[in-house]
């Protein structure tokens, strides 16, 4: 049968209308125009205009008419898909014909992928949120004691900059963040290298680090305060502990994931140990390290927030904590926005480094 040939060649959607044929059939069977409809549907003859004949045979209800119009469209599709009056043994339809068929059927098939990207779509959600906030504040639905209006927050930023509080606290926070991140990344990387490059190193280091990973850094805070007091040392140590774990985990994973065939290659070209680490191990572990760095940056901000809100006398977290005692929601919001912006900026910076450093990779993300 020619219809079958077309299906096999490349129009799987042909099965669509064929399936829908059945319910139409049954519906039609209940209607007065039984004979006509069934006759044309089963006999695969030339496309007699069945619907017109049908309509003239019986007035039919609205539902039936709908069925019939569906049937007409169906009829149109099937005839377009496969010319049924083709004699068996006639040359099978060309590839091109199958292509056009598929095109004709395209609207029948729902698209499964998410579709095309919305231009500027990333900003839509935040914008809607901001709009809702502004609307809530303007109409008085949002009590300023619950959440200050956006414009209050803007003027508060101006005030905080004018009296220098914002800059001072931001500088303190940034300093803690930087110390914690740099130290944590350095320690995490060294640990990952030792553990990734030597079996002994792995045996000794990996266990304790996995245990530390299971204990949230913030749960160690009481102990750290007892040991180190409430000064800068405790704060930076807390951040370091939070940072080194993701750096270690992902760098170690990257190291272990390097194809052992590269080690074989390095042996055949007589690469020395130092050159092997420099040319194969470090670049091979770089994707893992950079992924770890992204997590580390997030983790550093998180730890910073917590240590600054406990026993602190400076920093953004302190500023927010102080605002809480005075009920200044605008200052709290300023702190939140600040954390958000800083988090986004630092993540963006790491991603930029990632794109530069991994330009040899051609991934789907581009």
């Amino acid at each position: 049968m020619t219809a079958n040939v077309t299906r096999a060649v490349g129009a799987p959607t042909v099965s669509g209308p064929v399936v829908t044929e059945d319910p139409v059939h049954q519906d039609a069977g209940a209607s007065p125009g039984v004979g006509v409809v069934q006759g044309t549907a089963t006999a695969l003859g030339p496309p007699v205009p069945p619907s017109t004949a049908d309509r003239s045979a019986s007035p039919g209800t609205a539902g039936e008419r709908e069925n019939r119009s569906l049937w007409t469209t169906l009829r149109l599709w099937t005839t377009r898909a496969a010319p049924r009056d083709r004699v068996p043994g006639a040359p099978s339809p060309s590839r091109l014909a199958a292509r056009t068929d598929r095109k004709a059927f395209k609207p029948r098939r729902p698209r499964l992928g998410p579709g095309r990207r919305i231009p500027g779509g990333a900003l839509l959600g935040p914008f809607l949120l901001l709009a809702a906030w502004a609307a809530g504040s303007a109409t008085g639905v949002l009590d300023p004691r619950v959440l200050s209006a956006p414009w209050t927050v803007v003027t508060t930023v101006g005030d905080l900059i004018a009296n220098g509080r914002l800059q001072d606290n931001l500088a303190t926070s940034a300093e803690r963040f930087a110390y914690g991140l740099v130290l944590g990344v350095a320690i995490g990387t060294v640990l990952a290298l030792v553990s990734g490059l030597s079996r002994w190193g792995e045996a000794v280091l990996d266990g304790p680090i996995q245990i530390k990973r299971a204990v949230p850094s913030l749960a160690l805070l009481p102990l750290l305060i007892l040991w180190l007091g409430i000064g800068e040392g405790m704060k930076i140590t807390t951040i370091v502990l939070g940072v080194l774990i993701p750096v270690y985990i992902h760098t170690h994973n990257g190291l272990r994931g390097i194809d052992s065939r590269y080690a074989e290659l390095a042996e055949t070209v007589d690469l020395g140990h130092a050159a092997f680490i420099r040319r194969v191990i470090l670049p091979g572990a770089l994707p893992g390290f950079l992924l770890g760095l992204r997590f580390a940056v997030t983790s550093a901000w998180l730890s910073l927030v917590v240590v600054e809100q406990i026993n602190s006398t400076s920093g953004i977290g302190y500023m927010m904590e102080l605002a809480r005692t005075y009920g200044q929601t605008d200052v709290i919001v300023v702190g939140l926005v600040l954390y958000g912006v800083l988090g986004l900026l630092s993540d963006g910076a790491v991603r930029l480094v990632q794109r530069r450093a991994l330009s040899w990779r051609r991934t789907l993300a581009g």
Partner: protein
Amino acid sequence: MATHPGGLTVDAPAVRIRDLDRSFGEHRVLDGLNLTLHKGEFVALLGRSGSGKSTLLRALAGLDYDVHGTGEINVPGKVSVVFQDSRLLPWQRILDNVLLGLKAPDARRRGLAALAEVGLAGRERAWPNELSGGEQQRVALARSLVREPELLLADEPFGALDALTRRRMHGLLRELYRRHRPAVLLVTHDVDEAIALADRVLILHKGHIAAEQAVDLDGERGPGDRDFARIRARLLAALGVGADDDKDGT
């Protein structure tokens, strides 16, 4: 490694293997294998899968760590290996891949010359990912040749390439061999490839060299040639494959 200190004398063989045994656990892969390769000789090693071809090649390359075995292996000092996969470091540009581990004052110039020889002049700044499979394998060839090896070990180097590219690579390898004259041991499971490239074909069976066939063809070597067909039939018989079974040349 060489037993003869003057390993570069004219009649000294490039490779000599005596009574080589290799086994994985209870399974004996190589069993009393003897093999001699002359300098500048192109030898193909044929065998069914599991016959120990790769084990032998890895023994020659010094890559068999966790294998138990005895025997005597003499190989020249400069050995290069071409693997089935091109094994380029994806994070190094093409030229850096070619020069990997090469310590020579004029390394860069030699690397560029080697790339030009394999037809990739001007691509030295490309990333391996940007090249096709055939081009990547040509880079691997350049990486082997830039070291001016006395022995080139090739483990099914064209096995992952499509048939057309493979034919072109045969021509290239033959040309490079003619120019540099290393001893070559080509491991393959493709009878036609062995005849097209090698001067001598060995058949590895049950852990030792079971048969040997000189390929005394000159000029164009193609399956249409009568001598080619004769050699092919003999090799297939030695491999225990009827000509009818051999549909895809394996």
